[in-house]
């Protein structure tokens, strides 16, 4: 029965490719060719690395490579598995048929395996082959290496299934439809932590000083690396077979475990996802009703939508990641944290510069989604007696306030970690917040001219072309603002040691110039800087809102992505 289902799935995929648009086919072919080139490049690297690598490092490098493979796999497979398990349209039909859940599960498992995990598997085969050729490995290496790669892909896929089966059980039913986005974010964090695992495990011991950090011995990827290293170096022992045996047994165990969990998790999870009754009553607001200004009411309407849909918050995840990952990396590396704490001005200015770029990029992206968020309800606003200007301001203020609060939260945490003064923490927050108002307004305008609505992927709310243009415009705005920003915030007294650098690069050279310039009249130049920032922000915000209001009055056209 499972085989029958797999055949039907295969036919469906084939038909869907046959009947897809030429554009989609071209995109697929071009992407495949591009990925092929990247793999080819990595094959070359694997070959040359293997031919020069010391024998004792083979185990470490293979283990780390397998860890990366597992991380990539989990990163891509968790969201994909979730869609297949709970989101596919055919499940309603399959569950009404006399089929065991396990059959459907294995068919879906195979279907996913033939997607991205299959591609990762094929890529790993090519890389392992080139590595073997480079290291002049014996013939036995190749079949064993392929089996090891298959085992690891199956382990990754099995883990992805189990994580999904578990998550759907613990998430409240009315939140289940938003889970996909959360799982994507979760997969991102998990993938990142897997990449950081060697650093974390190696902290505080001598391995941190080695060329490659050593993996914990209990990890299956270590067994895989170690056993293949034995084969390559032609020193096969009982340990080699033990490690391989452990790897294959773990694979079978994970697959069996995920399969036995299916009856419990798959169908009930799907029911939970599709019933998703949200009869939970909100606190009655009848008593608190006040007639508010339309601009406030429109903002509040946006806020209610954002706070009740966790998918909306995922737009902020990249920002949190990019803010925290460098900090996290500094904190887990021996000595880095202690060093950076000795010069708060350096950490402060560096974080402000990162935050300015990220905040401006994120505010523009976050606010740009507000127009398409209306989705099919867009007509509702158009029949109401409100000006485009009111709608634009209503949407702008709430998005800006949310992000202003968010960046404040991040600044305060960073302030505590790096020991900044309250004045510096607040000054950075306010100046970045103010500049962000301009980029928010830019985002709003682009949101009005390139709105796209996809019910299945609600956080993707801009046409691809428009989102690229927005990226460049927002970047241009930040680059222009960076000059008055640096003039205002650069703490010249604390950073005067940078002037001692006799061979500065472009960036340090620029900072040296600003320090020298500002040192002549610090207060005056700070005031000039802040005035320039403010004027530029007001001008850009005013222009963007004006153009956006015109678009809204004219009638925003939203491109609806077909489900």
């Amino acid at each position, binding site marked *: 029965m499972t085989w029958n289902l797999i055949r039907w799935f295969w036919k469906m995929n084939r038909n869907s490719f046959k009947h897809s648009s030429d554009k989609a086919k071209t995109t697929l072919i071009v992407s495949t060719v591009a990925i092929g080139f990247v793999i080819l490049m990595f094959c070359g690297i694997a070959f040359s690395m293997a031919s020069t690598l010391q024998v004792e490092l083979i185990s470490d490098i293979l283990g780390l490579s397998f860890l990366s493979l597992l991380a990539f796999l989990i990163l891509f497979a968790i969201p994909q598995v979730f869609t297949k398990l709970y989101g596919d349209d055919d499940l309603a039909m399959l569950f009404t048929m006399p089929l065991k859940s396990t059959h459907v599960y294995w068919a879906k498992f195979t279907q996913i395996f033939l997607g991205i995990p299959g591609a990762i598997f094929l890529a790993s085969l090519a890389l392992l082959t080139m590595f073997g050729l480079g290291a002049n490995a014996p013939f036995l290496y190749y079949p064993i290496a392929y089996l090891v790669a298959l085992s690891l892909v199956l382990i990754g896929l099995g883990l992805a299934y189990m994580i999904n089966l578990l998550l759907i059980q613990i998430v409240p039913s009315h939140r289940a439809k938003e889970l996909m986005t959360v799982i994507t974010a979760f997969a991102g964090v998990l993938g990142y932590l897997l990449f950081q695992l060697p650093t974390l495990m190696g902290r505080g011991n001598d391995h941190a000083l080695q060329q490659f950090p050593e993996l914990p011995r209990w990890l299956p990827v270590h067994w895989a690396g170690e056993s293949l290293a034995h084969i390559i170096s032609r020193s096969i022992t009982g340990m080699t077979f033990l490690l391989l045996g452990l790897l294959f047994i773990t694979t079978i165990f994970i697959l069996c475990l995920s399969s036995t969990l299916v009856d419990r998790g798959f169908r009930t999870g799907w029911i939970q996802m599709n019933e998703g*009754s*949200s*009869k*939970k*009553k*909100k*606190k*009655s*607001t*009848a008593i608190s*009703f*006040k*007639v*508010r*200004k*339309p601009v*406030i*009411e429109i903002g*509040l*309407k946006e806020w*209610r*939508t954002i706070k*009740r*849909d966790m998918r909306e918050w995922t737009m902020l995840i990249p920002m949190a990641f990019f803010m925290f990952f460098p900090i996290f990396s500094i904190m887990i590396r021996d000595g880095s944290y202690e060093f950076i704490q000795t010069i708060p001005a350096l950490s402060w200015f560096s974080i402000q510069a990162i935050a300015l770029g990220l905040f401006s990029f994120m505010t523009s992206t976050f606010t740009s989604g507000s127009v398409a968020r209306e*989705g*099919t*309800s*867009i*007509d*509702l606003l*158009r*029949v*109401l*007696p*409100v*000006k485009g200007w009111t709608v634009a301001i209503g949407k702008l203020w709430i998005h800006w306030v949310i992000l202003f609060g968010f960046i404040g939260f991040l600044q305060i945490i960073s302030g505590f970690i790096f020991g900044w003064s309250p004045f510096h923490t607040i000054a950075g927050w306010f100046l970045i917040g103010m500049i962000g108002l301009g980029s928010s307004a830019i985002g709003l305008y682009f949101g009005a001219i390139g709105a796209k609505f996809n019910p299945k992927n609600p956080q993707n709310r801009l046409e691809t072309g428009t989102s690229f243009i927005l990226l460049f415009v927002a970047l241009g705005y930040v680059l222009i603002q960076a000059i008055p920003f640096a003039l205002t915030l650069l703490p010249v007294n604390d950073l005067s040691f940078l002037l001692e650098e006799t061979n500065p690069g472009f960036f340090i050279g620029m900072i040296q110039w600003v320090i020298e310039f500002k040192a002549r009249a610090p207060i005056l130049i700070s005031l000039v800087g802040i005035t320039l920032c403010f004027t530029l922000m007001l001008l850009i915000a005013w222009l963007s809102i004006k153009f956006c209001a015109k678009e809204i*009055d004219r*009638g925003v056209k939203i491109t609806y992505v077909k489900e």
Partner: protein
Amino acid sequence: MTDVRIKLNQISKEYGTTKAVKPFNLEVKKGELFCFLGPNGSGKTTTIKMMTGLLEPTDGTVLISGINMWTSPLEAKKQIAYVPDQPKLYPKLTGQEFLQFTASIYQISEQEFEERSTQYVSMFQLDQRLDELIETYSHGMKQKLSLCAALLHQPDVLFLDEPTVGLDPQGAKTMKNLLQALCKNGMTVFMSTHILEIAEQMCDRVGIIKNGDLLTVGTVDDLREQKGSADSSLEDLFLELTGDTEAQALVREMGDSPSSEVKR
């Protein structure tokens, strides 16, 4: 103050070479309940969208209580309310919050909001579900909520596109009674429907549109007179005006056929 609440002057809509609505004139007076009838794709919704400011007419003008919808849209929109056939409300707001949102946009006083929302919400039996998110509502409930919100600011003109679709019998009955009462108090209702029985029972006048052509406008009695068939139902008249010859013959044949009777 004019008695004409809706005035359409040679209004038309074209998409490329396709004429979705061909030029026509129409006047609907204060307190009148006007039904707009026509087969699927005949141009009913397009016409309503032009009247409510959602679609710009290719030609012609729309006046609501004497205000041009396309030159003074804000003033014109203050006079109207629109309930579409598929109400697309904000799914993440509760029913109560949606009513409050609408009330704030129209700047209704707190007291008026309290009185009117209580009245309409209890009339449509929504009071028990008002604190739930709209995304959990059925189509009929969304329709009722949309109607409640539309009536909050007591518009001069109420546009309804297929209002009875999705309503339960009790909801439909309540709506019919409410609309008649509102019209008695001077509100103008412009409604499109497929249910000819409703049109026959409720409407002061009907307009029949087909392929973008407004074929006729008048009371049901006027139409009977025009066709010279005093006993005809609105359904017969409608089919005669809108159906092609073959379709009409088929419908008649089915009506005459003994097999179409209920077998007991």
